[in-house]
């Protein structure tokens, strides 16, 4: 059963089309990754699922029924920019957020999550005394403390050190194992590849990718040569049939033009230098992302 169904939803802000005729379904119990450059429509889509903003046209259904006010009690939402009352004590804050959602056994849930994320000792401290990483963990607990069936996390890993990022990742996967559906947005393609059952990419308000990682990669085929040579990237220059070189220092990834024979490329390189390893692989999500949004993403980042 699909837990979220977005049907032909469009949302504009003045003349700017934030989400354009979006069609998306999220199956229950999965981890769904939203990717896309900044300003592509990820947050707008999430806010519409949360009923914070309303679509101009189209419909959104959650839990098998039309989205309504009470639906959001069953959804946990963590916005991209964290919002915590600085003067509140952590336990009181979490109880408050849990009770706003109408959560049951909020107190025991708060204790459980504080312990799980190593924050028990901070329960009676004020939020303003926390580091950024700890604040983010508190925000995560505030999202899940009411035991929602669906959680929506906007950039949950941004700004976290690897230890805290792992803690949140483990918590997300544990929730999924217990049957919770998770939607999260990320700019970290490695995380999306490793954690998500489904990946959805939105670009300029339009859906450009949607499916499992394998199905997305299948669209692009095995057009990448991953090679390691004694001469590094120099050996890969001016090769016929190669449209792009991605240099990682020790290894290089070469994107082949369509209908190109990898054997010819290998021969050309071997004529120049000694080849240590040679693989033909599918493009990574990172590579696919760049192929779709490369120029625009750069512009957005520099803007």
């Amino acid at each position, binding site marked *: 059963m699909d837990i979220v169904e977005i049907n032909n939803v469009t949302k504009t802000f003045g003349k700017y089309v934030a989400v354009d005729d979006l069609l998306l379904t999220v199956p229950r119990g999965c981890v769904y990754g939203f990717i896309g450059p900044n300003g592509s429509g990820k947050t707008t889509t999430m806010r519409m699922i*949360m009923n914070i903003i309303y679509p101009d046209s189209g419909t959104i259904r959650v839990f098998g029924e039309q989205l309504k*006010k009470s639906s*959001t*009690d069953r*959804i946990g*939402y963590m*916005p991209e920019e*964290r*919002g915590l*009352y600085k003067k509140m004590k952590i336990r009181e804050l979490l109880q408050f957020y849990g009770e706003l959602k109408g959560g049951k056994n909020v107190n025991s849930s708060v204790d459980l999550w504080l312990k799980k994320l190593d924050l028990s000792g901070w329960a009676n401290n004020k939020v303003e005394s926390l580091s950024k990483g700890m604040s983010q963990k508190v925000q995560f607990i505030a999202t899940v403390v009411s035991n929602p069936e669906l959680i929506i996390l906007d950039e949950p890993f941004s700004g976290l050190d690897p230890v805290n990022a792992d803690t949140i990742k483990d918590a997300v996967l544990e929730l999924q194992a217990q049957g919770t559906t998770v939607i999260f947005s990320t700019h970290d393609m490695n995380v999306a590849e490793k954690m998500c059952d489904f990946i959805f990419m939105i670009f300029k308000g339009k859906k450009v990718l949607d499916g499992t990682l394998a199905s997305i990669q299948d669209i692009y085929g095995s057009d990448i040569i991953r090679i390691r040579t004694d001469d590094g990237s120099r050996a890969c220059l001016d090769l016929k049939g190669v449209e792009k070189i991605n240099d990682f220092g020790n290894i290089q990834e070469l994107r082949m033009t369509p209908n190109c024979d990898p054997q010819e490329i290998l021969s050309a390189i071997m004529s120049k230098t000694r080849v240590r390893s040679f693989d033909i692989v599918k493009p990574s999500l990172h590579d696919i992302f760049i192929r779709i949004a490369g120029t625009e993403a750069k512009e957005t980042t520099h803007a």
Partner: protein
Amino acid sequence: MRKILRLTKREFIASVKTKGFIIALLLAPLFMGGSFIVMAITKDKVDTKDKKVVIVDRSGALANVLIESANQRNSKEIYDQKTGKKIKPAYLFETVTPSKKPEAQRLELSDRVRNDSLYAFVEIGQNMVHPEKNDSRITYYAKNAAMDDIRRWIEWPINDRLRTLRLKDAGIDASAVKDLFVWVSAEGMGLVSVDTGTGAVKEAKRANEAEAVLVPIIMLMLMFMMIQIGAMPLLNSVMEEKTQRIAEVLLGSITPFEFMMGKVLGGVGVSLTAAAVYVIGGVFTINRMGYGEYVPYYILPWFFAYMLLAITMFGALFTALGSACNDPRDAQSFAMPAMLLVLIPMFLITPILRQPQGSFSILSSFFPPFTPFIMLIRQSMPGGVPIWQPWIGVLGMIVFTVLFVWGGGRIFRIGILSQGETPKLGNILRWAVRG
């Protein structure tokens, strides 16, 4: 409703638990009544240093009476009879012969006052008994003559002697007309009414300034303070929650209207708490001081009714404006026009106190944002207002409160998620009308 009340609870606790609230609760009455307190404390702090005053008496008939009266005062009034402690300065008058060059004499005496060898000097004209002639003035020269006690004091013995001299000139025996100069004042009384219990005519109450002015001003100040405590902070509070992204988290759980109402009701709770502390504390203190009869108990239910509606009405306005702000500067610029609705009634206090039943007072008390102030002043004054007027006032306030909450909710829904350029007041009004 459950969510509104949960947010209300948080708002209330967050406000009343702060040191700022407790300090404001204690200090506000001190600031408001500061001058009264200072006056009470400094009442007995009188300069008891003797005051030496020179008399230049051109009439030749009045210096002696001043010296005699001062001697009497110095022997009877300047020492506390129980403790023998000096509580007032002695007035030490001495005469000098009037000079033929009065200006030079005045300059010389002024210099003595300047170098503190003299406190002041009095110049009495030549023709004091019949002032229609020239040179019939009394002039008092001192460093601060306008606020001087001695200047006021010398008027009594001089005028008393002048009356006697004038009667003598007219050939009238002063002892035969000793009531001639008894001044009779008109006493201010309230209106006479019938005692509903006994049916007898009740004696009218004596009107006094405390009841006529002090009670309405205290009620007005209390209402102003409650709006300052309960409604005003909502503008900044919403602006902060918006800029710190708390609003977005909350909107994931509650609707914008629930959000706004939770904030407003929190403000109502805060001001109810503060008002209860002030009213209970004030009534207790006034009764202990023996002025219990001046407590306008009949006004208190109206005060609380007006306050509840006013905080809701202004609270909705301030939260709505707060939602449109993107930084503290916006909050500052939006606060001023909104505060005018609260400040204008404060500026109108003098004409309202002078003519509480005038058509301007009546009409302005029916304008809902002004009702909690102006109607309250009019009700607090002796004579009160016709019973239908406060009810119409409350009805108008209810209509305006519903309107403000409805419009405020529409503004809040758009404003709380708006980013970028700060909207102008015209845009905000458009949000309220068009949604």
